[in-house]
């Protein structure tokens, strides 16, 4: 998650005819690519899910159930059909946006995703806000004061984010800020006795604003702080590193010298001139970090009892609930690709040189 990824994004741009073909063709080409990639992801997931030597039904029925019942159940769910047949059925299903029925919650996986994804999305957005603001602030500070105290502190602080296991920091924060200090509420999305807002988008903060239910809003926000920080802090390092590198690069450019020659003070030079240029490559990294947040959520959600997609998939692993694992993973890959596409388009807008 660092400068190498920036190289990736530049490579994505050198797709044949990137600039001349115009933004629309660029988007169409990227969409086609995305579909191909998602198809690939689907195959990987299907192969893994069905190659695993254990059988899900045994897991579902628990240790005590005798073998005959297990086979009966398996037949009922059509798990004894040949692999190729099951693959074709699954692909047909995906096209109709029907990812099968989860063995555990036994309602359609798509409905589960609709119920669980907003929690992960809300966590990922807050985490991205934190990692972006923290990352850019630290990256700029360390670039401007290269090799001075601030640079060292900023880099160590941001790298620590990527150095500490998420579940450990999560529990530590809970221990200090909830258990000992009592400043922040405990795990979960909302206190039990707060009347939750009617689900419109599924994001508590937005739903509570729509409903004007301010108590739920504040409580939800407080609940979000720690998990979002734990998740976001991990992404800070890569954003800080990219910002620092591109900022160092920009500070050496001639136009920064012109800005100084115009008598602008240091803060203005950085804000108006250096930062604006330095942020362009950083934007693409935000897309990639957002993607990795969806994934980091798997650990954070367990520690903070967050009813998100990450936990849905991990619980799926506990009982080898194939449809849930496959559907969930595919969905995360879809969001990951869309996030990247949006960011690349944003990249084109931000940088006038790309605008055609």
């Amino acid at each position, binding site marked *: 998650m660092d400068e*190498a990824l920036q*190289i*990736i994004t530049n490579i994505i741009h050198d797709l044949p005819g990137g600039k001349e073909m115009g933004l629309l063709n660029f988007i169409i080409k990227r969409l086609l690519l995305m579909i*191909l990639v998602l198809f690939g*992801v689907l195959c990987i997931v299907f192969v893994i899910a069905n190659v695993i030597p254990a059988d899900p039904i045994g897991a579902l029925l628990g240790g005590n159930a005798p073998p005959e019942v297990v086979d009966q159940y398996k037949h009922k769910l059509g798990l004894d059909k040949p692999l190729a047949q099951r693959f074709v059925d699954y692909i047909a299903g995906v096209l109709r946006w029907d990812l099968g029925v989860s063995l555990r919650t036994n309602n359609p996986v798509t409905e589960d995703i609709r119920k669980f994804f907003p929690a992960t999305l809300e966590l990922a957005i807050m985490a991205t806000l934190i990692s972006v603001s923290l990352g850019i602030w630290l990256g700029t500070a360390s670039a401007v004061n290269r090799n001075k105290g601030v640079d060292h502190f900023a880099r160590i602080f941001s790298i620590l984010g990527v*150095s500490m296991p998420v579940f450990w920091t999560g529990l530590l924060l809970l221990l200090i800020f909830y258990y000992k200090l009592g400043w922040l509420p405990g795990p979960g999305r909302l206190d039990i006795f707060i009347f939750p807002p009617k689900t419109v988008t599924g994001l508590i903060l937005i739903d509570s604003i729509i409903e004007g239910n301010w108590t739920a809003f504040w409580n939800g926000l407080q609940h979000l702080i720690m998990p979002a920080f734990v998740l976001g802090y991990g992404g800070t390092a890569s954003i800080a590193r990219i910002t620092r590198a591109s900022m160092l690069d920009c500070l050496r450019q001639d136009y920064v010298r012109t800005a100084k020659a115009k008598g602008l003070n240091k803060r203005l030079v950085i804000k108006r001139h250096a930062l604006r240029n330095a942020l362009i490559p950083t934007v693409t990294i935000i897309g990639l970090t957002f993607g990795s947040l969806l994934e980091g959520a798997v650990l954070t959600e367990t520690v903070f009892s967050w009813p998100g997609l990450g936990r849905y998939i991990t619980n799926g692993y506990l009982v080898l609930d194939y449809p849930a694992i496959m559907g969930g*993973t595919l969905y995360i890959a879809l969001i990951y690709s869309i996030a990247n596409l949006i960011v690349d388009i944003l990249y084109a807008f931000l940088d006038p040189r790309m605008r055609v």
Partner: protein
Amino acid sequence: MKQDTLSMKWKNFIESRKPLIDDWKHTAYLWRKSKLTMIGSFVVLFFIIIAIFAPYIAPYDPIAQDLSQRLQPPSSKHLFGTDQFGRDIFSRVIYGSRIAIWIIILVSIISGGIGTLIGVFAGYFGGIVDEVLMRITDMFLAFPSLVLAMAFAAAMGPSLTNTIIAISLVYWTVYARLARAEALRIKNTEYIEAERAMGASNFRIIFLHVLPMCISPVLVQLTLRMGTIILTAAGLGFLGLGAQPPTPEWGAMVSDGRNYLVDQWWISTFPGIAIAIVVLGFNLLGDGIRDMLDPRLRR
């Protein structure tokens, strides 16, 4: 020039190597100048030394149980205290460094190797080969790596080697991209054209010329990512898919100790700190190397 004395030959040797030595001097200067890189390299060096001399440093056997010494806080006898089996955490952390090194080296070789090869072939041959290989890379890139690692670990059964394979099968994408970019850049340089003109086979060109050029960017990336490899292994440990007990793998130690965090904080904290320091070391070293190799920052 009949009687070339030794000193003459030595002088020529130095003379012909002048630019290289000059370059190394500049690198040493930059290395000294950026304190963090120094810290990073010392941490990594320290980590490697501990791993090599673990048996001599560790006071106790990391797996030996002594239930009478259960859950002792850090003391002079047990520097980092003991865990729920009375095993000395200090010795387990020391031996843990061996496992961490083992994971890092293996994952770096496998993922670095696969990634670079795929990248170089894609970059060098271009056309269909490039398109296909890169789309495969995109697939793995779009795939949430922890979930993929979980899937592989679950498929092949939880064990240390499976964790290593799982992580490397997820980590190679970055190196593929890097190697491809490098290969593209080198492919159209004159001296490769010259090679081809002299009738060198593609494979000779790739392995003798293109591949060596990709080493430095890939190397930088490897150092940067070595830290995160340990973290992914820790994540797998937390989900119960990593190293099997009683192996003293840091990630599993942190995750096993998490239930004791409230009163026996040291069981989880010391391996956690070990992970943090080593990851920090690799990251700082990686950053340092990248700054040194990056022409723009070299002045």
